[in-house]
C-alpha cells in the first residue's frame, strides 16, 4: 500500500510545486500591499518592485487613523455586517424552510422569486421604494432591501429539501411543531450551509459601497468602502483638479502608500474570518447543489 511508483512521486512533487506557486500568486498582492503601506514614499518611488520595506514607516497608517471618518465607518461597517448577516440568515432560512414544505401557492412564490432574479428593478425604482418606506438615511436601508438573496434562498431550500423527511416526520409524531422542528432539527443540521451563506452575505455587506452613497445622506453612517474609495480612487482626481484655495491641497499625504494601507486595513477582517469558515465552505455550497 505504501509502495508508490516513481511517477506517483513525480506527480506529487509537481503538484506541490504547482500549489505552492498558486499560493504565492494568491498571497503576493497582499504581501505587496503590506510592504508598500509600511514604507516611505521616497522608497516606493525609488524601487521598481518593492518586496520588503527597507525603510519602515507608519506615516500612511498614522494618516488613516488620524482621519475620523475611517475608524467611524469601519465601526459602521462592522455593525452593518454583523446585523445584516443575521437578518439575511434569519429571513433566508425561515423562508427557505417554509418553501421546502408542501404549502399552498409554493409554485407561484418560487416563480415570483425567480422573476426577481432574472429582472432586477434597477437603481431608481429601488431608490423610490427605499424612500417611500421611510428607510432613507437609516442604516436599515443597507440591510432590509436585500434581506434575502434569491439565489441563496433557492440553494438553501434545496438543502432543506434534501434533509431526510423521516426526521421531521418522527418529530412531528413526537408532538413537535414546525417551529420546533426548524429550530431543533433543521437548523442544527444546516451548520455548513449557515456558515457558507453567512460568509457570502457578510462579504456582500462588507463590500457594500453604492447603497451607502445612494441611501444615506448623513456621512457619519457611511460604510468603510465609501471612504476607502475616496482614499484610493479620488486622491488622484484631487491632484488633477484646479482648486481655488491652493492651500487646501497642502498636507496631502503621499497617495500610494496610504491607498495600500487603506486597502489592507479594510480587507483584513474578511481575511481573518475566511480560514475559520473555510472548512464549512465547500461542504455547505456543495450539499445544497447536489439535488439542484
Amino acid at each position, binding site marked *: 500500500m505504501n509502495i508508490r511508483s516513481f511517477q506517483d512521486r513525480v506527480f506529487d512533487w509537481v503538484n506541490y510545486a504547482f500549489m505552492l506557486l498558486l499560493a504565492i500568486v494568491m498571497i503576493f498582492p497582499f504581501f505587496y500591499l503590506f510592504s508598500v503601506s509600511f514604507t516611505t514614499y521616497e522608497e516606493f518611488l525609488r524601487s521598481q518592485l518593492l518586496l520588503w520595506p527597507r525603510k519602515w514607516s507608519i506615516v500612511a497608517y498614522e494618516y488613516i487613523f488620524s482621519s475620523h*471618518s475611517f475608524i467611524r465607518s469601519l465601526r459602521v461597517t462592522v455593525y452593518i455586517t454583523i446585523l445584516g448577516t443575521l437578518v439575511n440568515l434569519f429571513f433566508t432560512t425561515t423562508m427557505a424552510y417554509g418553501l421546502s414544505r408542501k404549502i399552498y401557492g409554493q409554485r407561484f412564490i418560487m416563480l415570483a422569486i425567480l422573476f426577481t432574479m432574472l429582472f432586477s428593478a434597477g437603481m431608481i425604482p429601488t431608490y*423610490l421604494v427605499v424612500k417611500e418606506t421611510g428607510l*432613507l438615511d437609516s442604516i*436599515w436601508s443597507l440591510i432590509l432591501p436585500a434581506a434575502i438573496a434569491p439565489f441563496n434562498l433557492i440553494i438553501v431550500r434545496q438543502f432543506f429539501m434534501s434533509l431526510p423527511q423521516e426526521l421531521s416526520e418522527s418529530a412531528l409524531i413526537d408532538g413537535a411543531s414546525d417551529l420546533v422542528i426548524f429550530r431543533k432539527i433543521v437548523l*442544527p443540521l444546516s451548520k455548513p450551509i449557515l456558515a457558507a451563506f453567512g460568509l457570502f452575505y457578510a462579504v456582500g455587506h462588507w463590500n457594500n459601497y453604492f447603497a451607502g452613497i445612494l441611501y444615506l445622506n448623513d456621512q*457619519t453612517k457611511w460604510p468603510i468602502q465609501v471612504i476607502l*474609495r475616496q482614499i484610493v480612487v479620488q486622491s488622484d482626481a484631487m491632484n488633477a*483638479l484646479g482648486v481655488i484655495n491652493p*492651500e487646501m491641497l497642502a*498636507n496631502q499625504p503621499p497617495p500610494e502608500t496610504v491607498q495600500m494601507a487603506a486597502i489592507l486595513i479594510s480587507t483584513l477582517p474578511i481575511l481573518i474570518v475566511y480560514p475559520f469558515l473555510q472548512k464549512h465552505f465547500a461542504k455547505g455550497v456543495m450539499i445544497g447543489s447536489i439535488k439542484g
Partner: protein
Amino acid sequence: MNKKVVSILSASMMISVIAGCSGNNNEPAASSSPASASTASSSPGASGASSGDAAKQKVTITALKYKYGEVPPTDKNGVNLINEHFNVDYQINMIPQGSYSDKLSAVFASGTLPDIISFEGDDAWNRYPKFAKQGAFADLDSIIQQYPSMSGVPDYIYDQFKVDGKIYAIPTFSPARSVFSIMIRKDWLDNLNLSVPTSYEELKKVALAFTNDDPDKNGKKDTYGFALGKDLNPKLNMGTYWDPTAWYHKDEQGRFIPGSIAPGYKEVVQTLADLYKQGAVTPDFVTLDWANTNKEFYSGKAGIFIAAINGMSEDYVKGLLAIQPEAKFVSLEAFKAPDGSQGWTAARGFGGFNVISAQAAKDPVKLERILEILEFSRKFYPVEDRKETNPDYDFYLGNVGVSYDMVDGKPKFKENAVNLGLAPSTFLPDGGWPAKEADMNYPAGYSLPLIQELTGSLANHLNSTNWYASPNYPVISQTNLDKGAQLDQYLIDEQTKMIAGQRPVSDWDKMVDEWKKMGGEQIIQEVNAGIAIKDASEAWIK
C-alpha cells in the same frame, strides 16, 4: 455540545433580529427627521414668505454638492459659522465625486429636489438641458444682473447654458486660459547640451537623446523620453493645431472636424509611434493608469510629461527631489503650426455649475437668502486680501487660530482642518470667481520653489499667447451625447494600436472612415449645423 452551540447561536440570532426589528420602528423616524424637515421647508407655503421682517427669519436651505477627497462632518464649526452668518439652517449633503452622477439621478427621480444643486461640468450639455426643459430649475436671467459675481461671467460662458434662450445655471470658476503644456527635465537638457525644443522635430530629438545618451549621467541606460499612460493620456499636443479635442481643422468639404481625426493629431500619433519603436515612450503605456504614469516621470525615469499652472502635486515633486535633488523643469510654449497659427485651445470656462430648484425660488425670502450665500461664496480674494484681518476671508476659512494659522503671511490650514469640517469654504456651494484670470496667481499657491518657477513661467506664457475658442462649445449634438464617448474610445483604441505598432499610422484615413460610419459623420453634420463662424481664424482670441 455542538448542537447546543448551534441552538444558542440560532436563538441569539433570532433575538437580535427581533431586537433589531423593534429598533427599526424608532430609528428611521429619528434619523430621517432632517430630511423630512427639509421636505417640509421646501414645500410652498410652509415657510411664511410674507412675514414682516424677512431678514430676521431663519430659513432652512438644503444643498447637494460633490466633493473630492474626504467628506467632512457637517455638524462642526464650518456649517455652524454659515448658519450664524446667514441666519439659516444650512443642510448640505456632500457626495463623493465618483458616485455623484448616480446620486443625482436618484434624487431627481425621487422628485424632492434640494434648494441648491451642484452639477459637474459635463452635465451642462447632458442632463442640465433636459431637467431645465422640464421646469426643475429657477430661471435666473433677471437675477444674474443684480449680483456682481454673476454678471461678471463672460457671455460666451452663459451661452453654453442657454436652454430655449433662458439661463438656469450659475457656472463655477475654472480657468479658460489654462492648459496642460509639456514640461521637460531642464537638468537633463543641460547635461546633454540641448536647447528647449520649439517643434515636434526637436522634441523628438530630445526624447531620443533622453533614451540613448544617459541624460542623468549615471552610466546606466535607465531613462527615456515621454511618460505616457493608457488612453493616450496625456495627449501631448503643443497647441490647438494638434489638439484632439478642438474643432479647428476642416475636411475637404469645408466642414469643421474634431481634432482627434485631424492631420494635426495624426502628426502627434506618428511622432509617438516612431519614438515608441525606439524605446523613447513608456513601454507598457497601454495598461498604465494615471497614478503610475505620474510615477514614471516623478521617479526620474522619463524626462517629458505634462505641466499645468494649477493642480500640480507638490508631493510628487517632493518625491522626485528626494531621489534626484538636481531635478529642474522647463515648460514648453505653444509650437508654431504649419499653417502659421500658434496658441492653445481655451477651455469652456467653467468647472461645474449650480442651479436653484424652481420650488425654492417660489419663496422670495428663501431665494434671496440662497443668492446671498451664492454671492458670498463666489467672492474672490486677491492675494493681498488673504489676511486674517479681512473679516470675510477670516470667516470664509473658519477663523484664524481655529481652523487656520497665518504662516509667512499666508493662511495655512491646521492639520485635518478641512477633513474636520472647520472651514465654511468647504461647505459653501461655490468658489471664488475672479474678475481677471490672471488674478488667480496660481504660482503663489505653491510652496516648492521648483513648482513656483515652473508655473510662473507657464503663467507668463499663457497670459501672452493666443487662445482658440472652439466653435463647437455652444452646440449640443444629440448623436454626440448618445455615442460620443464610445466613438472617442474607438479612436483612442485605434490610435493606441498605431503607437504600439499593431496598426500602421498609414491606416489613419481608414480609421476615420470607420469612425464616420459608426456615427462620426452624424456628429460632424450636427455640430457644423450649429457652428456660427465661417473660418477657424475667426475663433482666435488674444
